[in-house]
């Protein structure tokens, strides 16, 4: 396992830990916008986990060759070649 995979694994695990430590956020105070901690804590972890997972996804696929565009010689290449590298 290279370093990138280790970092990816950590980024994926953090949100799990954040949600598993229930006693740490199962409280009313501090409130935000009238929402008890229990609610707003779990809401803000949604975008944070999305960003962490995305970075992990990029790290996992670095150096991994893409499966789809491999020319297989059977004429099934994509029509819009110009957009292939725009990702």
């Amino acid at each position, binding site marked *: 396992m290279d370093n990138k995979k280790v970092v990816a694994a950590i980024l*994926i695990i953090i*949100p*799990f830990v954040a*949600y*598993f430590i*229930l*006693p740490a956020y*199962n*409280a*009313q105070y501090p*409130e935000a*916008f*009238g*929402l*008890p901690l*229990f*609610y707003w804590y*779990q*809401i803000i*972890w*949604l*975008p944070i*986990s*999305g960003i962490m*997972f*995305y970075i*992990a*996804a*990029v790290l*996992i*696929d670095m150096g*991994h060759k*893409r*499966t*789809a*565009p491999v020319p297989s010689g059977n004429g099934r290449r994509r029509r819009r070649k110009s957009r292939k590298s725009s*990702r």
Partner: protein
Amino acid sequence: MINDATYGVFIALFIIFIAIGFLGKRFRKGDLSKIEEWSLGGRNMGTILVWFLVGADLFTAYTFIAVPSSMFKIGALYYFAVPYVSITFAIAMLTMPRLWRYSKKRGYVTAADFVKDKFNSRSLAMLIAVTGIVAELPYIALQVVGIQAVLTSMLLGTADIGLISSVAIVLAFIALAGFTFVAGLRGVTLTAIFKDALIFITVAAVIIGVTAAIGGFGHAFSSAPASFVTLPHKFSSAYISLFLMSALALYLYPHAINGSLSAKDDIKLRRSQSLLPIYALGLAFIVLFGVLIYGVPSALNLIKSLPASSSGVLVVPTLIEMTMPGWFVGFAFLGIFIGGLVPAALMAIAIANLLTRNIIKEFKPKLGAHLETRTAKWIAVLFEFIALGFVFIVPATYAIQLQLLGGIIILQTLPAVFIALFTDKLNKYGLGVGWLVGIVSGIWLVEEANHFGLLSTSLMSSPFGLLFIGATATVLNLVIVLVWSAVSPGKASKEFLAATKGI
């Protein structure tokens, strides 16, 4: 408020919705007589399209209707839906791209295709296919419950409400079956985007509008019982086991796998899954409707005046109706209405694939490619109507309970589908026995927890406090599979290993 503008906006948007569904046929044109084209959109969906397709089809009437009503009745426990939709996408981004690569290489359309190929076992594949179909049915039925809830709210107080809403539902399903048949997954994808736009606008408008009108969330929370403010301690284990097991279950459902396999490549798929927790913000707020309604006395009184059997599912529509102008109610109601229809279409396609490829084809191996697609199309239509019929026969509250059972059942395919993606050592007999023990213990424990009566809970008492039964059944299943495979390791089929080397 409901007035003529409500009906006008609702009907106009519904016509646009159906038109988009049929136009899907022309989107990224392909030969729709091939099953990959019809049911997977030719495996040609990019990051954003998969994001919308999978997102839209995972956030369904379960989200818009069932979870907020449970939240309204029970409180904070049902906020487990939020951690669930965060971590489920971590599981998806680790498993689905791998399944996609195998599928692309070996031409799979379903998870059972993979199991059949990998273990060289038709019986195991059929087991997985049947489990998928059985677990998916109550999920489709739940979509119809959501659709019905919107119509009931919209027509409340009208004479002949039963008749009008029945006719409307049947008409909606005929239109839905039409575009499922004609456009397949392409139609579902395009309508998913339309649906999401309506839903996101609705959630934002209601949250902003209602909190502004009642003076913030704090007011709603102070009017609600204490079990809403924080999670009662007796539910701690239940909360964690519910979100963890639901997260594991979601991508075992045939419709989730079907959506994932439609991606254009594995990298796009992984990225779109990884970003879905952000999409789930909409869900985090719509579940709060179950609390917000406590701050709106007019909506709360209306709900309390309805019979208990139907009041639950009406929480979200009632809150919208009582707080928004007429035209906007039409807009929002259509969003929820098609929020049930679009997933129902994808679920029907996924069931049709399983039934055609993994069951019918096993008995009729000579089914040609064209006939296979034609069969799948008709089965999809058939199941849409079976789901419809289900709701006319079974009361709404049952559908939600059966959905709980469906989650426990689908979890029993976890070893054969998810674990088999990462190891070649699983023993197929161990998988079969583990499955059986998981299913039997799961159903038994649910029956026992409900004293063999009406299903109302999927929690059981355990040394760790209340626990989700899906966790217990799955652990039993896993222990059997892992011990069996450790003692007598299985072999993946040689053909599979040779063909998938280096994937």
